[in-house]
């Protein structure tokens, strides 16, 4: 039995553990007390992290398919074919897109970006989770500028006040829930803001009930209450105070909001935990900015051990952003139109970067003729999953590099098997900005090889300079492309967990608070559609291959899907009684967009008038929701 110190592939907490191997086969997981994030504590996902690589449906050799035929080929043949077909599309003036992934390493994402911009000459590069976290990051940037001050997990455990806007932290980020529990043990005050009564709300000393789509009312109520305290924020905050007072003039200040504002203002150390949500982008951006403003005027943006932490779902969301795997950013998450950044990357890559702006994944999936997809299944991540799958089926040439045979890989014209996190070296960046190592402990099955190697060979076929003999070479180049990563490089030579922090180049921090205009929000309900239907959550682990291929984890997630194959809607007992709906029976939901029939589940913790559909079942109710995550509905017995 041998062990390799590695980083968990699931969520963006970035826990570390030892992956165990016996006779060449993955055998299990052992905790490591010295890991700075997890300190020996792992969640259920971490404890079963070895399973998906072992039980997963894996391809052993590159495979080409088309005209009803499938053919296993050598790597050279596969890569020549892929490069040839992509060049044909380029020469024919057809558009191509590239998707990186929040479950791929930094090295894989970096090379995917390089292939897109330097090789395929397109800015159509994105990753499937970006549309979900984009508005959150943008809203924080509106106030904080380019460098969002982030707290460390250790700050959470030692903070005095925690404002937790949550989906269900205990489920989405158990390691963070653990830090919150330790803070409570140290006497911290927990304030939760959520739609449902969850495990964390039961532990809170104050719970602010929000209505889906109208959470801005609560956030701006807190901001208004903070302004009422006479807080004008520290000197480093550039604030248009008059405009803000005017903007918040009519906002309702509840007794709870006043109490919370006082607690936050009084606290020396406070952290704000803010999750990514799905739905209307403007609303999300405004809400995120609202939290940042609250943190700024209460002085918690520059104080040590205080700050904001955007809660990201998958392991390498931050890394994918930092590698520039998004349409308008270069490595370092620097704006594409920043001349200095452009010049640096052009010099390094030896190629001119394309000028035409790129589309986001949701748009370019509908329009591209060629797609290179790295380690992801967009349909299981994007808010409109089925629409993405339909679009991908129509793509002329689809190349998928993945560890697992996902639904996307099965329809690909070129299927390129790559190594899993247990079989390759690399780095991933957790949500704090900690760059940590992933280490190979076994060999990939058959001829599968490291994703960085496959992408490097594709880059070579597009005459992009660069030669790498290991993932470390790629990481070295990342440090040149993204100066923020240059300082993290020394850790790659060390034999430990890694864990260097991404650096902020300039020490000076300044924040800007501007009025964003109207804060009033239209409620989606009406006399004709009196119930509020909302999506619950913004990511579904149950459809992630790391879960579906793990026998232990899949059992828990699959059970729900098996019970409700056609979808489920959750509502409170009083609503069910009024509507004469019974558990397991069908209900018809009708909105201005359309109607659907789904099964009923009664929940004891729901507010009357609000119905929830778990994110996993979003496609079942898409006809009713339209493009948003909330809608007014009429409910009938079906």
């Amino acid at each position, binding site marked *: 039995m041998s062990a390799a110190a590695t980083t968990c592939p699931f969520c963006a907490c970035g826990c570390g553990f030892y992956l*165990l191997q016996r006779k060449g*086969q993955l*055998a*299990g997981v*052992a905790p*490591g007390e010295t*890991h700075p994030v997890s300190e020996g504590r792992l969640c259920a996902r971490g404890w079963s992290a070895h399973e998906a690589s072992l039980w997963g449906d894996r391809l052993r050799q590159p495979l080409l398919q088309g005209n009803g035929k499938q053919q296993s080929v050598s790597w050279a043949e596969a890569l020549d074919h892929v490069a040839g077909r992509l060049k044909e599309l380029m020469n024919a003036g057809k558009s191509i897109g590239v998707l990186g992934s929040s479950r791929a390493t930094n090295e894989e994402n970096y090379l995917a970006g390089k292939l897109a911009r330097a090789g395929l000459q397109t800015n159509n590069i994105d990753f499937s989770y970006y549309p979900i976290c984009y508005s959150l990051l943008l809203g924080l940037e509106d106030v904080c500028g380019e460098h969002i001050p982030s707290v460390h997990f250790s700050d959470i455990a030692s903070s005095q006040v925690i404002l937790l806007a949550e989906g269900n932290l205990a489920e989405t980020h158990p390691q963070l*829930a653990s830090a919150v529990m330790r803070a409570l043990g140290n006497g911290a005050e927990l304030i939760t803001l959520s739609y449902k009564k969850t*495990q964390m709300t039961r532990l809170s000393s104050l719970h602010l009930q929000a209505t889906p789509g109208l959470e801005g009312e609560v956030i701006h109520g807190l901001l208004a209450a903070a302004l009422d305290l006479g807080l004008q924020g520290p000197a480093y905050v550039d604030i248009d105070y008059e405009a803000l007072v005017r903007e918040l003039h009519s906002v309702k200040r509840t007794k709870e909001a006043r109490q919370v504002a006082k607690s936050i203002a009084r606290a020396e150390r406070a952290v704000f935990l803010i999750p990514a949500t799905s739905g209307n982008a403007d609303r999300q951006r405004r809400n995120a900015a609202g939290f940042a403003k609250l943190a700024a005027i209460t002085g918690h943006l520059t104080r040590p051990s205080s700050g904001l932490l955007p809660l990201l779902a998958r392991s390498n969301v931050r890394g994918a952003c930092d590698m520039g795997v998004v349409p308008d950013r270069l490595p370092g998450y620097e704006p594409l139109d920043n001349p200095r950044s452009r010049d640096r990357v052009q010099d390094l890559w030896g190629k001119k970067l394309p000028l035409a702006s790129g589309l986001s994944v949701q748009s370019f999936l509908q329009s591209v003729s060629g797609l290179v997809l790295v380690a992801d299944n967009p349909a299981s991540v994007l808010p409109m999953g089925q629409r993405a799958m339909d679009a991908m089926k129509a793509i002329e040439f689809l190349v998928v590099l993945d560890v697992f045979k996902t639904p996307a890989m099965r329809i690909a014209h070129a299927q390129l098997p790559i190594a899993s996190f247990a079989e390759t070296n690399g780095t991933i960046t957790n949500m704090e900005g900690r760059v940590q190592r992933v280490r190979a402990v076994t060999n990939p099955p058959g001829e599968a090889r490291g994703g960085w190697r496959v992408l490097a060979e594709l880059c070579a076929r597009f005459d992009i300079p660069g030669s790498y003999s290991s993932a470390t070479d790629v990481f070295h180049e990342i440090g040149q492309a993204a100066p923020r990563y240059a300082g993290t490089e020394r850790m790659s030579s060390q034999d430990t967990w890694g864990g260097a922090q991404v650096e902020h180049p300039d020490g000076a921090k300044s924040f800007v608070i501007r009025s964003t205009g109207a804060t009033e929000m239209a409620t989606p309900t009406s006399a004709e559609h009196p119930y509020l239907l909302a999506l619950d959550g913004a990511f579904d682990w149950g459809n992630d291959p790391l879960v579906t291929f793990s026998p232990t984890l899949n059992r*828990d997630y699959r059970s729900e899907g098996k019970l409700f194959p056609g979808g489920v809607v959750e509502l409170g007992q009083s609503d069910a009684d009024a509507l004469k709906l019974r558990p397991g029976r069908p209900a018809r939901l009708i909105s201005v967009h359309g109607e659907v029939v789904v099964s009923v589940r009664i929940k004891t913790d729901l507010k009357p008038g609000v119905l929830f559909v778990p994110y996993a079942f979003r496609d079942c109710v898409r006809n009713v929701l339209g493009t948003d995550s909330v809608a007014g509905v009429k409910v009938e017995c079906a």
Partner: protein
Amino acid sequence: MALAIERKAVTKWVERLLELGEVIAPVRTPCGDLLFSIVHSAEEVVWDSANPLHPPKAFVLPQTDPLVKITRNGQGVELEPIHDGARRFLVNVRSCDAKGIAFLTRMHEMDPADASYLRRSDNLTIISMACISPCAVGFCICADSGPFLNDSYDVQLTDLGETYLAEVGSAKGQAAVAEEPNLFRNATEEEVIRRKNLEAAARNHFGEENCHFGSAMRRISTGRVPDALWEKMSDWCLECGACNFVCPTCYCFSVKDLGGNGTWTRCRLWDSCQYSAFTLEASGHNPRAQRKDRMKRRFFHKVSAQYYARDGMVGCVGCGRCIKVCLGATHMPAVVSAIRKGKWHE
């Protein structure tokens, strides 16, 4: 008869054992953790150290344990048991872990005996190290599993400074010592007295506030733990299953086949009674759908008089690992204390 071996000679003994089979001992990883690992040279063994966080349980009951090879043969299948009869020496294991393996072995010996497990445990020689001072989180004294052992070891070493006292507890232990008879001599009377004094001192070093199983057992065995308390406690559990995985006495498992295309390996996998679908039935019914019910079940199994009568001990060896790995706050001493006081601390 107690023996003694010079501190310097232990390395020689381990070198001999390495020629006979796998030697498993605490090893320092490059990251600085201690991990029970297969050692390749006697120098790798870390002697003066805390107890590793991950127990050596995986060497008798692996997290992924291949049991049977299944091969399709025409209309039928051929079954071939997978033997792991490797001779192993578990070196510098603490009293709690030795006791844990003895607990697991008793369980797997029960009818129907588990041949796969027993093949491993029969070939395992446990060379334990008595604890001369309590570890930071341990409460073995409450679970009758330490700091020194009277049983459950093959050889028990006690650190006397320049020498180790070596007590032989079984024929397997005798065989291991007989491999290098020249390294051992009979212990002196003074050495035996020192060992006794060290044990008494170690016992004295445990504080008052430990894990009061007796009190919890009376309440839990007679259904006198209020449901509201289970519910309250369950809000502090994050269902990670870590308490099960690091517990030297937990053995729950599920079964899953690995492979395809006509050949499968039937594997036993570690499982956790705290996972919601652990007891999910095919009909969709789950007798322990709520977290509080699963917690109640776990602690009934660990602490009740009903199981004490069957197992002869509580299902806990007081190693304290659950305190360190619990993502929430519902480790053994916390729950036992809450049951005893009828109140969850907050």
